[in-house]
Each structure stands twice: as structure tokens, then as C-alpha cells.
């Protein structure tokens, strides 16, 4: 990035600095990375929209079982395709950075885990989360899965309504010291 002039104006950089958890250097680094995904497209338009499959080919997301959900959550396209612009990518990396506070991370984690988008983690959501966690090569029997979900709900579902609201989710996350460590992608 050193010798070639930046694709951003001063104004934009300042905005990004104000609106993410990154410093200027990191923003430029993020853009380098974004460019590496699809150089010709991004060179043409710095804020080009890249398809979800392209996004998922990055090393950071390629082996992540929640990659598609991450793209969808951070995508501003709105049509659930998960296509991301650079700004979306920046948002994503900002949330996953070390500097982002736990509450912000928790909020996004909740949305990633909320597959049907009804603002509650229902049994169905939990089932999908677990399945993705253990990989598709491993299977729990239906009984075990049922039991596991029951256990989770027993722990976290304080109001007994059979699904987790954000408040309940955040409560659990608050007590976990591992969350900030694991919900992190180094730029």
C-alpha cells in the first residue's frame, strides 16, 4: 500500500476511523485484504460488492462453520444473499477485532446464531448452531440432541419460554471469560 496512492479520501478515512474500532493503518490493511479477495473488481471500484461465495473463500472465513451467517449479518444488501461491500467487510472486521467491547460482539453473535431472524434463539436455531459446531461428519442421536438443547435451555432460559432472548443470551455471555477470546479474528 505504501507507494501507491490510497483509494480513499481523507474524509472517508476519518469517517472510518470514527465509526470502527480501527486505526488508520488497520483500515488500509483491511482494504488490502479486501482487495486481495478480488483484485480487479476492487481496483475498479473500491467499494465493490463481492458475492458471498467470494467472501467465504477468504482464509478467515473459509473454515468457519458460520461463514454464511456472518456474511448475511454484516451484508448491507438486504436480500439475504450475503454479498458484502468493503464497508461491510470493515464493519465485520471491526466487530471481530480485539478492541470491540464484549457487548458489541455479543450482539452480533446473537444475530449470527439467530438463523430465522425472529430475534429469539429458538430450539431450531440452537439445533443448527450445534450441528454446525460439531461439523456435519459427526452426528448426535435425536435423543441426545434433544437432551442437549434441553440442558442449554435449562441453564440459560430464565423465563422458561423455550427460547433464548437477547437479554438471556447476553447474560450467559457476560459470565464467560472465553467469549472475547474466541469471538475474534485477527486482521
Amino acid at each position: 500500500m505504501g507507494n501507491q496512492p490510497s483509494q480513499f479520501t481523507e474524509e472517508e478515512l476519518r469517517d472510518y476511523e470514527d465509526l470502527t474500532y480501527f486505526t488508520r493503518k488497520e483500515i488500509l490493511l483491511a482494504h488490502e485484504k479486501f482487495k486481495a479477495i478480488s483484485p480487479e473488481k476492487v481496483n475498479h471500484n473500491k467499494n465493490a460488492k463481492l458475492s458471498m461465495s467470494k467472501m467465504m473463500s477468504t482464509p478467515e472465513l473459509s473454515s468457519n462453520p458460520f461463514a454464511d451467517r456472518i456474511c448475511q449479518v454484516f451484508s448491507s444488501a438486504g436480500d439475504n444473499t450475503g454479498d458484502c461491500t468493503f464497508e461491510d467487510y470493515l464493519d465485520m472486521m471491526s466487530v471481530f477485532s480485539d478492541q470491540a467491547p464484549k457487548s458489541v460482539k455479543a450482539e452480533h453473535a446473537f444475530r449470527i446464531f439467530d438463523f430465522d431472524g425472529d430475534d429469539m434463539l429458538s430450539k431450531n436455531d440452537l439445533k443448527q448452531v450445534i450441528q454446525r459446531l460439531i461439523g456435519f461428519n459427526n452426528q448426535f442421536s435425536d435423543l441426545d440432541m434433544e437432551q442437549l438443547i434441553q440442558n442449554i435451555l435449562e441453564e440459560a432460559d430464565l423465563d422458561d419460554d423455550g427460547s433464548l432472548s437477547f437479554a438471556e443470551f447476553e447474560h450467559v455471555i457476560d459470565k464467560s471469560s472465553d467469549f472475547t477470546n474466541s469471538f475474534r479474528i485477527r486482521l
Partner: protein
Amino acid sequence: MSGGKEKKSSRSSKAQGWEEAGSEFYQESYPGDQMDNIHRDPSKLATLLPSKQRVATNRRGRQAQEFKTTRRRNSTLTATRTFRRGSHYQEIQVATLPDLSENLINESQTWEEIREIKAMPVHMAQKRELKNQLQNATKLRLQGFEQIKWKRRKAWQKIMTKWSEYLTKMELWRSSLKTIEGNFGTGVVAYFVFLRWLMVLNLLIFTIIFMFIILPQLVLIEPKDLPCDPNAPPVFDEKRSTANESIWIYANTSVQCCRETYLNEIKHNRSEFSILHLFQGTGFMEKTFLFYGMYTHQIYGYDPLANQQQQSYGSNSYNEGTSFMSNRNLDNFIVDENNSTNNNSTPFMNALLNFSDNNNITTTDLTNFTTWREFFSKLDIYYDLPLAYIIVTIVCYLYILVSIVKAVAHEFKDRLVEGEGQFYQYCNLIFCGWDFSLHNQKSAQIKHKALFNEIQGLMHIKRYEFERNNRTRDIMFKLILIRVLINILVFIILIVCAAVIFILFNISLSVIEPNFETVTRYRSFNVFMGQIKKFSSGTSELDQQFKILFYEFLPYLCIVIFNLLVPILFNYLIQFEQYSPLFVIKMNLFRTIGLRLSSLAVLISRFYYLISAKNENSNTECFNESYGTPMCWETFIGQQFYKLFIIDFATHILVTFFVNFPRAMIARHMNNAFARFIEMDFELSKHVLDVVYSQTICWLGTFYAPFLPAIAAVLIFFMFYIKKFACLVNSKPSTILYRASRSNSLFMIILLLSFSISIIPVVYAIAEIMPSRSCGPFRGLNSVWERAINAFEKLPKLLQDIIFFFGTSSFAIPCFIVLILFLYYYYSVSAANKHMVQVLKNQLVLEGHDKQFLLNRLSLFIKQQQEYQKRIQRQFYDQASTTTNSQQSQGINMDTIPPPLLPRAPRSETGSNDRSERSSIEIKHHSRMSKDIGDI
């Protein structure tokens, strides 16, 4: 004013969010489709509840993309919020409070809010819009002091960002850490961060030592010591003499003479350069400041020679370092008078700046000084190196202790928060289980598997417990027998290891130190030794040297080999004991620590045996030659730890590159059972132990080899790369799930344990063992600590009294009681808090039930309402059809049907002004509901 307000707003409190959401709940109008859903599925109604609403509002907006929304974190932040739910339904303007005129905000608040935007879960475009909005909004300019305060905060913020940017740029091994994290997850990366932490700690320690011990020694010019005078009469030693026994120090064992002998010894015997010396710490290495022996016992800027003539002079009192010497000085008054007049008196400035020393000693009157030079040269500026040596040692160990304890406490706090945590083990596993940083397909597979196993283990733990409780008596008996046997076996192995090290150390000593064999206790042993000696007296010079080298390193090689091999044996043995997997790791760790510490203990006990020997004729000899005590035992010990440290590091290199690397290569290119057998996991606990062990050696040796922390820092630097290689190339990710928090606390606890154990011998040596006569800053004293006591006695009386008071029981007992009271107080506070948590939790559950109950009632009520309405409508239709039949001209429209009466709910017309807000909201709510119902 704004300070408090800002704080309030910056906290952006959840409570506010809730309230806000609550008001939204009432203010929002319900579109028909939602009510429709609710009729079909009453549980959907739950999403309308305030608790669900807080996030819901944001998120729902997000899915319907054509909206413009902000999440209002503060009540002062005003923004219009529009929701559009699908195109078929009418747009509904959500009433918010966009009243700019009422709460005008000032610049500082705006700034604060702009900084809060980044925490909002909306897209960049919206964030930017929001920022612009905030920037363009009318705002109050801050005045006077407020302005300054805000400016200062802004500047501070800027500096902090710059600083953090700088730090990230400086951050060592950033990309390495990322690679490791990508392949092995956060648990393993915590180990590498720990390595880095240790390196920085060592560097800091070395900086302290360098600044206060090594640098003065290098820069300042050491004052000339008294010459060795073998013919001087013996001196009475006040300190060591008791009532029935008087000890005289003969001139040839005076500190000066011993020193001379020692220097001669080094010069003659060990002066030629050899690469071997570099590893042994002997020869030319011994003469460097690497080891304790070369540090001076003089006080800089204070000349003992000059002192002879100035018994009455002020600075005299600082002569405690050479306490008995001053006694001698009386006798030696005439010695070297010429010298003393030339090289006279004082100051450290003199030495440092090479001032010509033309000051006259007899003038003690400060007013007589004509130049500042003279003034300075008359000031009693001195640097007391021995005292500094003690103080720096204490400071360093305290610093280490504090930094470890701080880290441990931090981890401990995390664990405590989590600790309640037994409740949340499933949630932790599911929601925090995945390492988002992993970016390697293969590791991801392994992670999947590990998570699967962990979850399954957790699920079946009840089954295991059941099994364990239902073991038959026979099996139980057998198992206990096996465990006892294996524990005995482990104990025997430890003893054997210790014995082997003991014997090898003796052998090695007898080869190196020619005096050692005269120890009569080992007569039979000596015969054996004699044979070895014959064997070892090789032909050529080089051969001889290598043999000596071999013997010198023999015990350490043995220790290192044991450290490598015995844990494997332990690993094998523990299979038979049938512990739970987690306990197996702990047990193995425990035993390995036992092994390593026992070998160190043997080593130290051997050292102690060598140096602590009571010297019957201590008056005539500088050191106990007949016993094999080294001339300068401190340097000797420093050398031993140096050797051990080096060889430990060398084995890491050897094992990693020449044993494990081929192993990994073979395993990678073969694909059978054998390959699987020799393939290695990255066993975290083992690697942690390696590092902690070398750190322990460093701590043990620091007092005797001040450069050891620097060496440790450098070697840990290389160790990082070795371990990185071991991790990335040699091993595959472990199937055991390492969590960052768990492994972090593991490192720190092991480190704390080994620190507290390693400090015991050091403290003992400082307090009890007599320093050698011929070298080091404490020569001629009975113990190192004596130097500190002497310095203490020089303090003003008041200060002494105060410090003494701290030591008395009249201080200690009240202090103790107060501490206990505090302890009890905090204990009861925590107990109360725990109780409170329980109560609140119960309350939460109860509320949940209440809510559930109310929801059911509400949905029931809505259903009834619907039916009621249908009935009314049907009746009305019936009526209408009858009336239209009769009076066709009236033409009553559907729209004019009055809303149905709500049972018990007050009609909006009846709502008078004096009603509370709450009820008016209720009215609104109900009337809206009825309207909705009416729409259906």
C-alpha cells in the same frame, strides 16, 4: 454539570434502553398482520414484550432494508425512526421525540455520541449518516472551563489512539501469533503470548539489574582496596566472637589477601581462551561481570585507603562493608601514606569526571570552597554497590512476585465470574466453543471433533458417574491396589532419579575439583573414582579437555534426559489408573513437576553440602580447601545454573529439530498404524513446563549471575521460534479442547508455584550462608543480610524506631486483627451478594412465569374478543339485512360501526386529564388494539 451528565449518558445504560423499549412498546402501532400472527400463535406475542423488543427493534428494521434507523443509545440523541414493514402495509411513523429545541446538546456530548456510533449494529452507510446528522445538528458551544475539559479529553483520546497504533506496530510476533492461532486456536496462542510475557519480564528485570548494579560497576572507577599484607597481626573479629570463644582473623585470610589469591588463581589457571569456556562459564567468562565474583565490595566514592587517616572524618561511618578492616586500619596506620595523600578521600564525582584531586583533606569547612568543583568533591556522594546489590535483588523478586500475582488474580477473577459457571457449561461450550480465528480446514475438522467429544463427554458425565458409583467391590479393590502400586512406583522412580543425579554430581565434581576426593566419607567411592580418573586422563590435551567438559556437564545432561524420558514413562503408567481425562492431565503435570523440582533439589543440596561445610580452621584459610569448596562458591553456583540453563536450551533445540522433526516427517509420509503412533499432539502442559523450568533456573541463579535474566530473555526469544516450529511443523492440533482462560490460569499457577519454591533457597542463602572471602560484594561478612542490617543501623534513630515498631507485636497484633475483620467483612459481603444473586434469579424465573401466564390470558382474551366481535357483526348484518329490507334509503355504512366495547378497559373518551400517564398509554394501547381488531 456536564461531567455528571456525560457520565450518565456515556453509560448509555441498559436501563434506559429498557425504558425506551418499553415506551416504544406502547407507542408503536400494531399493524394488522402482526396481530394476525398473534391470533394464530400466542407465543409470537412474546416478541412484543419489552425485554424482547430492545434488540428486536434494531433487528427487524435490518431485515426490511428500506429503512433509516438508529438505535438511540441516549435519550439526548434525537433521530427519527421510520419503520416500514413490507410494502403491502401502510407506513407507520413511529413516534419518537425529535424535539431538538428542548434538549439541545453541547459539543462534548455530540462528540461522545459520535464515538458511540461505532458500537451500533448498523451498516456503515447508516453510521455515516448518523454521524453527519449529529455533526450538523445545532449544538451548544461549551464555555470556559467545560471547553478546556472537553478539549483535554479530546486530546487525550487522540494520544491514546496514537499510542495504541504505535503499540500494535511494535507488537512482537503479531503475524506469528496469527498463524498459530489460525492453526491451533486460542488456547495454544495463549501459551505463546505467555512466552512473550516472560521475555518482557526478564528484560525488565535485567534492566533494573543493569541500571543499578552493572552500569555503576562498569562506569565508576573502583577505589583501590587496601593491599594484602601477610605479615600484619591478626585482628579480633567482634561480630563472630562469642563470650567463650574469640575468633581472630589472620592477615593471610583477610579479605584483601583472599582476593589476591583468587585473582591469581583465575589468572594462572584459567586464562586461555577456549570455546568450551563459553558454555561452562569458566576461564575468561569467570572474570567478566557475568558472575557474582567480580563485583566489588567497595563503596564508590569512598576510599578505604584515605579512610585510614580520617577516622574522625564524616564519611567514616560508611565503612561497614569492611567492618573488621577498619579495626585493622588502626594497626596499619602507616601503610602507604604517599598513596593516600594522592588518591585521597571522597567522591564519586572525582572518579567519574577525573577531577584533579587537589582538595585538601583537613578542610572540613564548607565555606572555604571557592569553586563548585571543590564543593562537589567535598560532598559525600557515594554509591554503595553491595547495598544496591541487596536492594535490587529484593526489588526484582518483589516485582516478579507482584506481576505474577497480578496475572494470577486477573485469571482468578475471570474464573470466579465463570465459576458460578458450573451452571453455564453447556452454554459456554455452544456459544463460545468455536474459535472464530481458526482458518485452517484441517484444524477446523479437528476442532469439530474436539467439540463433539467435549459435548458428548459432558452429556455422558452422568453416565460415568453412575458407572463409577456402581463399581463392584472387587473392581474397586483392584483399582485402588493398582493406583497405590503405581504411586509407589512413581515415588521410587523419583528417588532413583534423584540418586542417579546425586551420584553423577559427585563423580563430576571429583573429576573437576581435585580436592573433592579427599573427603573421607566416600572412601569406597573414591576407589571407584580413582579408576574413573585413570580412565579419564586421556592422551591428548584436547581429549582431556573434552573429557572434563563431559564430566562437567554430566549431571546436567542426566537431569535433562530424565526430564525428557521419565514423563513418557509416567504417561504410560497413568493409563492403568483409570482416572478421568481431565484428571489425567493434572496428575501427569503434578508428577512431572515433582520430577523436575526433585532433580533441582538434589542439585541444590549438593551445592549446599559443598559450601556450608564448617571450616575448622577458617582463621587460616580463605576457603575450605580440604572439603572441595570452590574458592568463590557464589561464582561456582552461578556457573552451574548457567550451565544448566544452556544445556536445557540446547536440548530443546536438539529434541525439536533432530528428534521430533524427523518423527513428524515420517508420520506425515507414512500412512499406517506406526505413523499414527509416532504422530504428536501439541501437548500444552508439557511445553509450559519446559518454559517454566528454565525460568525457575533463571530465578535460582539470578543472585549469583546477574546476567542470567538477559540470557533468559534472549533464549526465550529463540525459544519462541523453536516452539513455533514444534507447534506448526512437528505437531498436529490436540484433540483436547484447550480454552484460553483455562490454560492461562494453568500457566500462571505453575509459574507461581515454581517461583515460590525457587525463592526459598535464594532467601536462605542470603540470610544464612556465609559469603566467600575472596570474591563478591559481601566478602568478609557473615551473611549477605548483614550488609542490609548494617545499613539499617545507619539510618536516623527515628526511622529505625518506626521500622522497628512495625516488627513489634504491638503493631502486628492489632494489624492482624484489623485484617481479619476486613476479611470477615468482605466474606460476609460476598455471601450476601451470592444470596442476592440467588434471590434475583428466583425472581426472574417467577416473573417469567408471570409473563407466560399473562400472555396466555391475553391471547385467550383476544380470541374471545374476536369471537365477540364476529358475533356482533353477524348480529349487525342480520339486523342490517332486515333493516335494509325495510328501510332501503338509510344506507348504513360499515365504517360507522362503533368499536366494540372493551370489558373493563376504559374508553378513550372517559380518560380525563388527571389520569396517570401510564393509564393513558394503556388507553392508547387498547384503543389501538381495538382498532386493529376492528380492521380485521
